[in-house]
């Protein structure tokens, strides 16, 4: 399954791009700018819920003594790194779409504001990971940071209802399963969610494997370091 992730994600993205650019019609009011929406909501969903939800869960499992393992810390770090990339792309595609449709690159409505704050919180997490510190101390502190940042995710989810901003209301699901978008646009949108999820899984898998290998190299180096340390005493 691991080997299939890469080719599958490429294929899904390719089909989504084909459908989004050539098959689906332009929107009545937004024209061709609607095609950015085959990227933006999927990127947002993956970043806000999948990536940071997984980071929060991994961090909780690391902090819980019964399940504590370095692998949860490495998984959390990998998902945050990939999540920050997805969130940056979310904001970028949102701005590219917002400029022609809303007339502005940026507006301080609730969802955009909360999303920007979440991005900053997780950039803080990445900054903490780069602070020289004992790996276990750093892992614990980053795990706490991830959980605290995860508190912000529900705020993003309910921000449209709470603050009544300029951002699009939930475009697909309105009160249950009555879809607002129909036809090929709907299928393309749903496919984009699947494609971005698979891309995310592939990127996290690769990043996690790299982190595990880095850790194994450090462990191997430790054995050498112990021997060298003992030799200090003999000289």
């Amino acid at each position: 399954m691991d080997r299939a992730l890469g080719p599958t994600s490429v294929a899904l993205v390719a089909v989504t791009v084909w459908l989004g650019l050539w098959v689906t019609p332009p929107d009545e009011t937004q024209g061709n700018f609607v095609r950015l929406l085959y990227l933006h909501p999927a990127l947002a969903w993956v970043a806000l819920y999948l990536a940071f939800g997984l980071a929060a869960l991994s961090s909780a499992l690391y902090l819980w003594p019964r399940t504590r393992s370095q692998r949860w810390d490495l998984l959390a770090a990998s998902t945050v790194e990939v999540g920050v990339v997805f969130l940056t792309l979310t904001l970028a595609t949102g701005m590219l779409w917002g400029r022609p449709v809303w007339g502005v690159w940026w507006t301080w409505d609730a969802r955009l504001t909360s999303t920007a704050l979440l991005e900053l919180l997780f950039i803080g997490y990445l900054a903490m990971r780069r602070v020289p510190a004992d790996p276990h101390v750093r892992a614990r502190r980053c795990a706490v940071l991830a959980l605290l940042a995860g508190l912000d995710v529900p705020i993003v989810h309910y921000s449209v209802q709470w603050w009544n901003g300029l951002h699009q209301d939930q475009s697909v699901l309105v009160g249950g399963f009555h879809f607002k978008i129909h036809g090929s646009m709907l299928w393309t949108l749903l496919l984009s969610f699947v494609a971005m999820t698979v891309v995310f899984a592939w990127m996290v898998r690769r990043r996690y494997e790299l982190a595990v290998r880095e850790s194994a190299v450090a462990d191997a180096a430790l054995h050498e370091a112990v021997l060298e340390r003992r030799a200090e005493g003999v000289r």
Partner: protein
Amino acid sequence: MAPAVTLRAAVALLGQFPVLAGVDLDVEEGSVVGVLGPNGAGKTSLLQLLAGLLALRSGSGSVMGCDLMGDRRDLRQRVGLLGHSPALYPELSAAENLRFGLRAMRRPVTDAADALERVGLTGRLSAAPARTLSAGQSRRMGLAWLLARRPALWLLDEPHAGLDIGGRDLCDEVIEQAAAGGATVVFASHDPERAAKVSNQVVQLAGGAVASSFEGQRPSHVA
């Protein structure tokens, strides 16, 4: 008598550096062990490990019945550590520091005054902010804290450093008194003669491991 400390191939890290590189050590309960070694040998790190303040990376270790690979919180409450740096809060006085510590440990705060008197920190010295104390006076404050706290395991990092002759003799008396009361004492030192005089066992550390060990001059069973 059950050993107070058992370490087998203990490795501990500071960052990625192995400060302890396979320590084997046995310390009998109620004994006094001196740890000698050059700078960087791992003496301080060994004491930190025994205090439960440094994690055991590999090997095995048991201190006062607590597994060093497990939860070390129980161990920490049974240990008293006299480190290099002055303990507790520099802005508070010696008396305030001791009273805070005793309240935290649910011990009678009246023990603070007795302990400070024992080490010669009375009057102005016990009331002035701890940061105004000299290095030797800070050491005495640290000893007072251990006297007041009465832990089962005393860990002293170069306790004679910074003390005058009287202070060093006081330190030896305090160590002897603690051991006579049933406590186990492990202390790091740069003074081999003094270490041998007060210890049952002297251990030489080098390169993060025990290089050699010999018997001290303190009798094993002191009435």
